[in-house]
């Protein structure tokens, strides 16, 4: 369980938001939709333990990320995967470099296992044989999918994705929907931050919860989906 209590952020000389409460359950897919410059990326960095909130606290499984043991916060970050919205800084790398780096962060992964998983993940996101491609040469959609696949290499317990659905593009929405559903079924948590939720996903999720400038959707789990999968 990831909970944010009375979260507040002071940014650019003004209060961006204050007193927001969030709760994301385990083995579920949470979807945070918000307008541009509403602080979605910032919210994800608070939840990942990267940036201390100016007010409030983030609690993971009952432990405070910012007021508790720093080693717990590090262990939390190590268990997280993150697909950023901005992927310009790594333009000089190749797709293979992304996987090598991700494997380093995960540790304890054998070279043969890494290669095997890498091939399968790249195939899953529609980028087979792209290991030697440079990030700079990829389209926005390809970059988003390559970064997602590299994060999945480590098998993160919680996956944060910033603008991934929009970045990957309409043709890959169904693939992502299936992937998130599969991750949740395996006990993982996925938290997505997007400007808007795809219409079919919104229909499946039902009424959102309004939290400050955000609307928070709980995407239906595999059991609920059997009744009415978005399609």
């Amino acid at each position: 369980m990831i909970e944010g209590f009375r979260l507040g952020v002071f940014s650019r000389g003004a209060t961006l938001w204050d007193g927001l409460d969030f709760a994301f359950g385990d083995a579920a897919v949470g979807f945070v939709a918000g307008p541009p410059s509403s602080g979605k990326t910032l919210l994800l960095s608070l939840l990942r333990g990267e940036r201390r909130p100016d007010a409030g606290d983030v609690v993971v499984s009952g432990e405070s990320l910012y007021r508790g043991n720093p080693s717990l916060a590090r262990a939390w970050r190590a268990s997280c995967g993150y697909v950023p919205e901005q992927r310009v800084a790594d333009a000089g790398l190749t797709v293979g470099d992304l996987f090598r780096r991700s494997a380093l962060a995960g540790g304890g992964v054998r070279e043969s296992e890494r290669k095997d998983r890498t091939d399968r993940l790249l195939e899953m996101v529609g980028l087979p044989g792209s290991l030697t491609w440079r990030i700079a040469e990829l389209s926005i959609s390809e970059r988003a999918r390559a970064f997602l696949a590299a994060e999945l290499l480590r098998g993160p317990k919680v996956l944060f994705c910033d603008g991934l659905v929009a970045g990957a593009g309409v043709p890959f929405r169904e693939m992502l929907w299936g992937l998130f559903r599969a991750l949740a079924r395996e006990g993982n948590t996925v938290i997505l931050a997007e400007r808007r939720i795809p219409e079919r996903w919104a229909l499946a999720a039902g009424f959102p919860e309004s939290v400050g400038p955000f609307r928070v959707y709980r995407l239906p789990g595999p059991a609920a989906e059997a009744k009415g999968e978005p399609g």
Partner: protein
Amino acid sequence: MSERPSLWWIDWRLSRRSVVREAIGRFLFLCLLGFVFLSLVLSGGVSRLLADRYAMTAVLRAEVPSAEAEGLARKVAALPPVRSAAYRDPEAAWKEFLRAYPGLDPLRGVGGNPLPGYIEIRFRPDRLTGADVDLVTSALRSVSLVDQVLAGGEGLPRLLRAGRLASRVCWGIFGAFLAGFFLFGRLQERARAVVLAGDFTFLAERGVPAGRLAVLRAAGAAVSGFLLAAAGTAAGGGALFLSLRTFPFLKVVIGPPSDLLLPRTVAAAVLFSLGAALLSSSASLLGWRAARSGRK
């Protein structure tokens, strides 16, 4: 997959090409430094040259029996600062005199050989100091067989001072090269830290402490610095060995090639490698810090 990631040789895992390129550059630099270092260790700056040129002479009284004179020479040779002590009997002294001043044969015809025997004393390069010269001089003056001790008089302290100064200049030049190596390494480390900044940020965002990363990078730099320095010193030592074999006149300044294998030379090479390891790890830490502060 949840194990703590191993950060040993992380630069090597992230950027092999640049690490290899830098290692080659450092190895060549360390070969040169190793060559200069071993030359300085063996020569002691200019100490060996001075010790080769300087000789103390103990002039013996007339009619000292050869056996006693040779016994005295052996005792002098046993003194710690003395490298060698050789007795020259009056006849050998006369021949040397004639070689130096040809045409003075008639001097002998008047009253026989006018020259007494003497002991020529040479010092160890590392013991050619004013204190050691005084020690040997006073030891000789107390012996009744010795008539005079010729130790260089007032000129010797000046000569020794000049020698010390020249040695310091030599070591200073070596120190400047070493500082150059450090700055070169620091620039390389900084450039690499900047290039890999994205990867380090990536790892930090995934729970890898930046401090641990910096310390393990520095430890890796120390190990690779030691190995490169050891290899560079060995290669530099090999080049010095060949130089001494090819150009024998260098032995006067640097010493015989066999001295390269003396335990104290090997110990000095190990110390040099440890110093290079320390400099490499410091360069890594400073380069890391500079890259991070420059990024902010």
